[in-house]
């Protein structure tokens, strides 16, 4: 069973439906025990970094995320669920993240006025290292992004994919059991579902 962490924000139904569409058993939950008992865990996310951290804190889920990751079970972060793993975000001032991965989260700033923020729509990936969630051949199709911030990991070894938007930015990381992506696999039609199917079969 896959637990999708519910912290009161975002479109969790889409993540659940996408996992179900590839045959996985997925529940949306804010119950610590349900999440801790799950075979794998998804931290989805849309919204503001600070609100998400506040909600995780209020629901007593910060420790649950830490424990889930420490347990070694497959962990998938999506969009804000990627960003939250890092130490801090520079959004409306500096906000502390979960601090599981060293690095920070920055906002896009472009001098070129044709580069709009949010980075919204379909963009391609460049695969930096092998990942169990991608066949080497399918790294280049388009995936759906919608975000104004991007992660800057201290450790480049964890970078799985980069994407070009005015500059190359990190669109996917893998560190041990953590797989996290800036784009939304649950909104990326067939190739997104393929990724989720691979994630569901990790354990």
């Amino acid at each position, binding site marked *: 069973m896959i637990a999708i962490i519910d912290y009161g*924000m*975002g*479109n969790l*139904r*889409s993540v659940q*439906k*996408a996992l179900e*569409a590839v045959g996985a058993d997925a529940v949306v939950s804010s119950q610590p025990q349900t999440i801790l008992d799950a075979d794998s865990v998804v931290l989805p996310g*849309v*919204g*503001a970094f600070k*609100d998400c951290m506040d909600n995780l804190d209020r629901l007593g889920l910060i420790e649950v995320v830490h424990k889930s990751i420490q347990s070694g079970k497959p962990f998938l972060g999506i969009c804000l669920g990627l960003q939250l793993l890092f130490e801090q975000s520079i959004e409306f001032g500096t906000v502390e993240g979960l601090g599981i991965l060293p690095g920070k989260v920055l906002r896009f700033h472009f001098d070129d*006025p*044709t580069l*709009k*923020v*949010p*980075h*919204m*729509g*379909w*963009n*391609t990936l460049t695969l930096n290292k092998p990942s169990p969630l991608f066949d080497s051949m399918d790294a280049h199709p*388009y995936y*759906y*992004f*919608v*975000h*104004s911030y991007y992660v800057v990991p201290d450790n480049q070894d964890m970078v799985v994919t980069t994407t*070009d*938007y005015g500059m190359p930015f990190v669109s996917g990381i893998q560190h041990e059991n953590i797989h996290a992506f800036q784009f*939304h696999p*649950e*909104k*990326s*039609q067939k190739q*997104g*579902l393929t990724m989720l199917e691979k994630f569901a079969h990790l354990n």
Partner: protein
Amino acid sequence: MLAKRIIPCLDVKDGRVVKGVQFVNLRDAGDPVECAAAYEAEGADELTFLDITASHEKRDIILDVVSRTAEKVFMPLTVGGGVRTLDDIRNLLKAGADKVAINTAAVHNPEFVQQAAQRFGSQCIVVAIDAKQVETASPIIDPPVDWKDNHADLFQRPAPPAPTWEVFTHGGRNPTGIQVIRWAQLMEKFGAGEILLTSMDRDGTKQGYDVALNCAVSEATTIPVIASGGAGTLEHMYEGIVKGKADAVLAASIFHFKEITIPETKRYLADKGITIRL
């Protein structure tokens, strides 16, 4: 490279798809969930539902439509029409919408957009603007602008001969006196993540997007702008993106009645050198 998006729009009334010509004379044309699945199969980049259900009692029907769509379709879904409160937004997102489009409620209370963006994040807040080119300043009918003094600059017309577009509400019937470009800038400042810009002059005419309008708004803002209203040919799509500097192009009836298909549009644009997800 980020691809330009092709977005079919389905007008939904009482849970059924309809399409009006210039927002009058609606034709019934099917089940929204079926249409959504068909568009996904064709490779649409996103989907927009515009709920034009008039009766307040029937408003929950759209939630059921969204929820059934989200079970079948794994692509971004925007829902607009009648979004007035934070609860409306929450319910739509919970049902499975990725973005909500706010139109009249923003005109009545611009701070609503700010509240919505702070609560749910800019990425899911689209401000829909119905724009019309005007020769002379409109007598303000809508809204009862109790906030006018706070944003007096929104009503200042540019010096002639610069074209002037005003924001209209109620399907293009009610002028507001608000200047479209300044309005778009305020909405960006208040946290809108995207602008859905419909030319009421062109909507339903198949004469092409108002590229001057779209270009003016796109250049005045730093958030994505979706061109809407008037697409009738493949060339119009190209013009919307190149001359109108649109980040996405939206169309309804031409896609819906298969006058132009999504794959045909994408192939045409890609052949002309536009970055497209094929």
